[in-house]
């Protein structure tokens, strides 16, 4: 396996993914806390303020200049919702030194800059720089209000919100406009200090990071796997060393992080009446989003549900695509998405507004069909192939591979990619039929004119 994990302090890990597939090295730092109404907006604001300047490099244009100097290394940060956790993510991607026109040592510089942004903010009078906080508050307000600009994602967000009302997962990851007024440079900085003390910290490095050329040469000369193994270990250590010896990392205290572990077995959502929500806006096309819940408590539920989802709405072969789009010409987009952490499937279609009832009926027929076992062994095979092929593709994208291992890190069990594939392949038709009987329509959301 090309993946290594090392706990450097309690609650702080380095994950090393060694790969020669890319022209780039990618560094990622993820900070996780439980999602809650009180802090969601402040947390969303943090990365935006941090990226504005550090106590060493006090403005964004100076940071940009530094990045440009490093052959356009790209820095990005943002906030995500993963299960019931809110995650602040920081990424820095840089060209692997082998592909530079001239020799230059970029890795150390990159990591220093990244930790500087996250852990060494610009502070004035016990607060963040007031101008930065003010302008980022305005921008965050714009992002929150801009939710409506893309009708498809808006409808999706709204369905989640309705389905998980009064629960952490129903919160919007960017927070709420009404919270923004109360945020000051001082109280945000106080919040930041607490956040950094308590959050779960995971640092990922991905790339061909053999910064020690000698080690590489030795490896080529050696024939026995033992030597090779130990050389690999040394290399892994050397990138770890850069991280561990970073001043800001050293200053961090160990912590017992509070985050929500993603359990393999989900809790039962009490079954309720189907909730229908209709919203009006000036649109030419209607957006229909349907949230499905499961009450099954089977052993390998998530894997079975993943296969169920693929048959129902996973691709061009799926029941939804075939029946809603191809047979009835009701939509251009028709499919479903499985949200693993919440054990929920979302069906999404863009339809002619007048066809609402017909589309809804057609969709429900497909769900009924699944319940009645109206799908074939061939459908099972196709669905598994689709999933397996996407798992096999994970290591072909640096950020996807990091996201996969981070998902494992947040979960109460760890599967390698091969183990994951095996679990999918072990799902049989009977499992899916059994699960289908426990699936129910939780929420129907429709955006129309």
């Amino acid at each position, binding site marked *: 396996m090309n993946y290594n994990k090392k706990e450097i302090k309690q609650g702080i890990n380095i994950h090393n993914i060694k790969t020669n597939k890319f022209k*780039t090295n990618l560094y990622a730092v993820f900070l996780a806390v439980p999602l809650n109404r009180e802090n969601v907006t402040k947390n969303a604001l943090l990365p935006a303020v941090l990226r504005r300047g550090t106590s060493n490099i006090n403005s964004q244009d100076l940071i940009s200049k530094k990045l440009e100097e490093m052959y356009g290394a790209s820095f990005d940060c943002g906030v995500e919702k993963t299960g019931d956790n809110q995650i602040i993510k920081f990424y820095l991607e840089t060209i692997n030194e082998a592909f530079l026109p001239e020799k230059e040592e970029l890795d150390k510089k990159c990591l220093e800059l990244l930790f500087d942004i996250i852990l060494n903010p610009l502070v004035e009078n016990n607060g963040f720089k007031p101008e930065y906080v003010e302008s980022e508050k305005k921008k965050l307000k714009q992002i929150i209000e801009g939710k409506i600009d893309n009708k498809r994602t808006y409808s999706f967000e709204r369905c989640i919100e309705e389905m998980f009302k009064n629960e952490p997962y129903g919160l919007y990851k960017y927070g709420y406009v009404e919270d923004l007024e109360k945020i000051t440079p001082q109280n945000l900085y106080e919040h930041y200090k607490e956040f950094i003390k308590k959050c779960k910290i995971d640092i990922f490095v991905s790339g061909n990071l053999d910064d020690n050329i000698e080690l590489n040469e030795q490896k080529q000369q050696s024939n026995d796997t033992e030597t090779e193994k130990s050389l690999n270990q040394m290399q892994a250590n050397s990138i770890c060393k850069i991280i561990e010896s970073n001043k800001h990392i050293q200053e961090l205290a160990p912590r017992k992080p509070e985050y929500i572990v993603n359990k393999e077995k989900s809790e039962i959502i009490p079954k309720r009446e189907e909730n229908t929500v209709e919203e009006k806006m000036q649109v030419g096309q209607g957006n229909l989003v349907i949230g499905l819940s499961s009450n099954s408590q089977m052993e390998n539920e998530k894997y079975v549900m993943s296969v169920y989802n693929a048959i129902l709405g996973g691709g*061009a072969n799926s029941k939804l695509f075939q029946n809603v789009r191809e047979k009835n010409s009701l939509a251009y987009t028709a499919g479903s998405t499985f949200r693993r952490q919440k054990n929920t499937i979302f069906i999404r279609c863009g339809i002619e507004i007048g066809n609402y009832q017909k589309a809804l009926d057609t969709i429900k027929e497909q769900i009924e069909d699944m319940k009645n076992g109206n799908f074939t062994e061939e459908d099972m095979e196709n669905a598994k192939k689709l999933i397996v*092929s996407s798992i096999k593709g994970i290591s072909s994208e640096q950020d996807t591979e990091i996201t996969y291992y981070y998902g494992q890190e947040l979960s109460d069990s760890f599967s390698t990619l091969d183990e994951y594939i095996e679990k999918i392949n072990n799902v049989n038709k009977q499992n899916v039929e059994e699960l289908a009987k426990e699936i129910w329509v939780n929420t129907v959301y429709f955006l129309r004119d």
Partner: protein
Amino acid sequence: MEIIESLKLKEKEYIEKLENGMTVIIIPKPELDKKYVIWGTHFGSIDNRFIMPNSGEEVFIPDGVAHFLEHKMFEQPNGTNSLDTMMALGLDANAYTTNDHTAYLFECTDHFYEGLDELMDYVQHPYFTDENVEKEKGIIAQEIKMYDDEPGWRLYMNAMDCMYKENPIKIDIAGSVDSISKIIPDVLYKCYNTFYNPSNMIMVVCGNFKPEEILEEIKRRIIPHQKQGEIKRIYPDKEKGINKPYMEMEMEVSLPLFVIGFKDLENNSNKEELVKKHIAIEILLNMIIGKSSEEYKELYEKGILLSEPDMDYEFSDEYAHIVISGQSNNPEKVKEKIEEAINKFKEKGLEDEHFNRIRKKVYGDYVVEYNSVGDIARMFLSDKMKGINSFDYIEKYNDVTKEYAETILKNVFKKENMVMSVVKSKKM
């Protein structure tokens, strides 16, 4: 096979022109698990008037045919759909239509040759009937409506309307609900027979392949075709100036969207020169309004820009323009600042430190393009359609000097060729 090697990228490209005139490009990536193949025809939304090489008949087609044809290619006489067949193999299959080409593709880790069987079979076997053409109209109408609700797309089409009077770049790729209603099987067959001749097609494969082996596999699957002469495409004459400098519309958006465009009226027939020019334009755009520019800094701090605008140079033989797009509460101000920066650089020249730093960044941007089989294959196809070899962006990089960039600045970034399209927020 011709072999081109990029020493900087440590990549090789194998090119073969087959006897039937089709070009095959192979980029081996032995270290990757994913494989990608894309097969494109040089037929896009702008090709709406042409002379069929065999009959000499002049054809004028409704808007949206190239895209309609793309949808219909998947349908097979036995009632199956090739997209389904490929998905059933676990392949990620798709197709798309642009202004100047249509492409069919799939990506996979396993079952590559079964996928290639299907891909090369369906692209070579059209099957259009009155019934199946009629059915598609409903689906495409929904696709058109989806785009109609997208402010970004409307904004872009309006920008094209500002820059061009009659150029077919103004045609919506999918056409309109009205124009597609006129499509019948005969039109589709005429276009198919003209543009899907191998001599008008390019295939790119990228992944863990041995070049000679994959080339043989491709050749084996090609159906012998009558050789055809050159397709004469008829476009309106090149226009001198712009159509109109400004256009706006209202939609339900939280913040206005803008496109600032520069129509490029220069002759771009020398392709090597065009690559250099493209690199220079990317450097200049970054210097003018990129993240580290003074202008961006000021606009960001005042809350006028929320993030770096997207910047692009788009071109084919029939059109060329720069597109700068973003969101702002004051698009006028953004335009003003861009003009200021251009004038400043024109008067004072470019600073060495600034130019060299951005040049490094642009180099890095090109290298990053080589991270995935899909990015690589799509890039080689789309560049080749324009007569360009993608490696040239790395190879010609050193030829782009500060002085050269200053000349491009003077020739392309002209006030009289500048346009702006805005989508304003409708008062709710």
